[in-house]
């Protein structure tokens, strides 16, 4: 096989547990974003726009939808004769099969895949960030510095620095210190989880790390510190621009709302740097007489009879008459009935919300189901495929799944609560 200068390995196996019900049935990179995309579209589009035509996607957690979505990679122009996109789940070997135990282990288990392209460099990416970046420039930087490893960094607000892997660099961008989630950060240069390695060098470290007992087999915790300790040439590539980790409900909501700003903080209109995705075959969306749409994003296939303000609506969404959607995200094919109010909420795919509901009303609700104790930061999240019966009220700070709805229905049968509902209606 012809050799490639640089191939990409995209880590897409994380569960994304902080997204709660949104990632119950699908991996985080497949979570819908921005009206018609899924999170992974940004990384895949960056690859193809940067001229990287070979991408290995490492999957593990609930990969079904992700696999179907990626398919042969045609939407991203990654259906290639030589290279293209390859989905790499863990597989059984002669002795034993094992799951990916960490980010580094995932690459370790696919050394053969990378070797088959004989690349000089490997780009390691993760599938849970929203950003536009030209990896070819980073590769140039890597070559220029004669680095063994280059890490893309972004300056984050000081108060948030403790959430990231923090780097200290000399004037020439050479890294001399790296700390994963430090309590007292002494720099605000955060690792973006984007690395370029000389493949031969990385391979050596991966093999070594694998043999070490007690290692987490993780890039941030093991590989990077080990390389630094041994004095490898490691450089920080400064990135300026929009970059958002959408790993939490709050940040996912914020990143969607960022698109509504004018001008948007992330320019999706650049014809030279299109974000590609799998497009639904739906007619243009329809806004009816008497409907109102303001500061919002609406996609093909949707039908709007009500009011939509400051929200992001995906394809195939319907909003009934006299309903109001405000400060919310409504994912593909969700149906909202009449005279329903949805505020400050994330409505999952294929959700059906009946008439006269109020989702995200002021009063703070509480979800007592322990396994759903995910930080929702005052938002209301309705899990995929749920049917919310007419007249339901769900407060803020709630992550709703089927059990939660059942518990609501039980409560509603008590007479006093029933009286209160009558009053509201």
């Amino acid at each position, binding site marked *: 096989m012809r050799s490639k200068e640089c191939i990409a390995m995209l880590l897409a196996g994380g569960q994304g547990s902080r997204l709660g019900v949104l990632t119950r049935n699908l991996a985080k990179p497949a979570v819908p974003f921005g009206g018609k995309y899924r999170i992974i579209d940004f990384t895949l589009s960056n690859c193809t726009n940067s001229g990287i035509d070979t991408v290995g996607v490492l999957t593990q957690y609930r990969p079904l939808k992700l696999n179907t979505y990626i398919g042969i990679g045609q939407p991203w122009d990654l259906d290639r004769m030589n290279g293209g996109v390859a989905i790499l789940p863990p597989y059984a070997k002669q002795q034993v099969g094992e799951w990916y135990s960490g980010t580094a282990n995932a690459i370790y288990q696919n050394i053969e895949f990378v070797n088959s392209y004989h690349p000089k460099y490997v780009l390691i990416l993760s599938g849970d960030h929203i950003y536009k970046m030209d990896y070819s420039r980073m590769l140039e930087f890597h070559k220029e510095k004669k680095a063994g490893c280059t890490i893309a960094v972004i300056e984050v607000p000081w108060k948030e620095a403790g959430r990231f892997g923090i780097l200290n660099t000399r004037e020439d961008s050479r890294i001399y210190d790296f700390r994963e989630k430090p309590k007292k950060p002494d720099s605000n240069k955060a690792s973006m989880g984007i690395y370029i390695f000389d493949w031969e060098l990385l391979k050596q470290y991966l093999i070594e790390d694998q043999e070490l007992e007690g290692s987490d087999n993780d890039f941030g915790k093991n590989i990077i510190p080990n390389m630094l300790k041994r004095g490898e040439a490691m450089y920080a590539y400064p990135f300026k621009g929009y970059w958002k980790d959408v790993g939490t409900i709050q940040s996912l909501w914020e990143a969607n709302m960022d698109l509504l700003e*004018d001008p948007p903080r992330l320019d999706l209109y650049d014809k030279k740097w299109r974000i*590609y995705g799998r497009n639904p075959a739906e007619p243009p969306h329809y*806004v009816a*007489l008497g409907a109102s749409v*303001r500061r919002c994003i609406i996609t093909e296939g949707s039908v709007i009879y009500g009011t939509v303000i400051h929200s992001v609506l995906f394809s195939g969404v319907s909003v009934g008459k006299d309903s109001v959607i405000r400060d919310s995200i409504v994912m593909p094919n969700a149906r909202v009935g009449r005279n329903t109010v949805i505020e400050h909420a994330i409505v999952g795919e294929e959700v059906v919300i009946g008439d006269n509901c109020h989702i995200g009303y002021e009063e703070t609700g509480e979800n007592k189901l322990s396994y759903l104790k995910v930080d929702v930061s005052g938002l209301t999240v309705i899990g995929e495929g749920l049917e919310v019966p007419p007249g339901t009220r769900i407060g803020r700070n709630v992550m709703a799944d089927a059990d939660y709805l059942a518990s609501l229905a039980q409560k509603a049968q008590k007479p006093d609560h029933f009286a209160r509902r009558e009053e509201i209606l």
Partner: protein
Amino acid sequence: MRDTMGIVTTDDEDVSLKELTRARSAAAVPFAGRYRIIDFILSNMVNSGIQNVGLLTQNNYHSLMDHLDSGKQWDLDRKKDGLFILPPYVSRESTGWFNGKVDALHSIMPYIRRSSQKYVVISGSCMVCNLTYDDALEFHKKNKADITVLYKEEKEASPAELSRHTLIQTDEDGRIWDMEVMPSSPKSSKISMRMYILEKNLLEYLVEESVARGQHDFIKEILIRKMDTLRIFGFPYTGYLVKIDSIQSYFRHSMELLDPENREELFHHCGIIYTKIKDEVPAKYGDRCKVSNSLVADGCIVEGEIENCVLFRGVRIAQDAVVRNSIIMQNTEIQGNAFIENAIMDKDVIIRRGKRLIGQETYPVVVGKKAII
């Protein structure tokens, strides 16, 4: 329907769409916000299970080829068969200019002969609908027909409208006993949809025979002349049909799409309508926009007022612009304080600040591609 191939004629010479067909063939005319007419024809064939489609082109087929590419979006990039775009060529027998549909079919005889299917569906490109050919083929076989013509009965259509079409008359069994091309006084309201089903062998024979006799008109010189010797049947189509035969009808039918029932019929009736993917950003609305009864495609940015409009992909409506009862095609920009009513704007038009453009409902203004007003 695996045993059926499709042939699409993309230039219906008697279709007059003025500015809209100046730079493109009839089949490439944009329709319904993100489609072109050909999308419906190809999707119908694909949804019927047809995997071998030949496209006869003549005029301005560049935009059509650009749109169709390898046929991938219609799932027609197949190893065996798939999509064949067949432009005219100069040879010893031919000037490269088709002398009627029969001549065009004759020029692609090698392709037709090479195809392995038993039946052929031939379709023109001025009728837009969502159907599959399964029922019509079943009807064709049951009646042991030689040729089946799909038609739609439109009792409410005006004589003026009817006289723009080929009209047929059928007996109780569905056999056609009269057929007239654009008659000035219509005797029937059964409009031929320019879609025909016949066996490939018969098509080969009829085309060879006609060409040998110097006859080039498919309808007049094959269908009408052979009505007594061949079993020609009419299959009634009862669904929603858009006939694009004039600027007025194009405008009227586009406006009809604002009715949810018509959209349902056209987009979700039998199958999905596929089109070229443009990867546009979702449509975005501003703080002070007013939107009512409109279809809006991806890539649009609406800051002004739109009412009863169809907006194609990438249209910009600036703040304080007002657009009513209009069709605005791809990447057209309407700047602030402009006022547009009853207009059709082709692609890449710019309407500058404060300009007013008002047509009549019965006679919309048509602004050609790339015009700046």
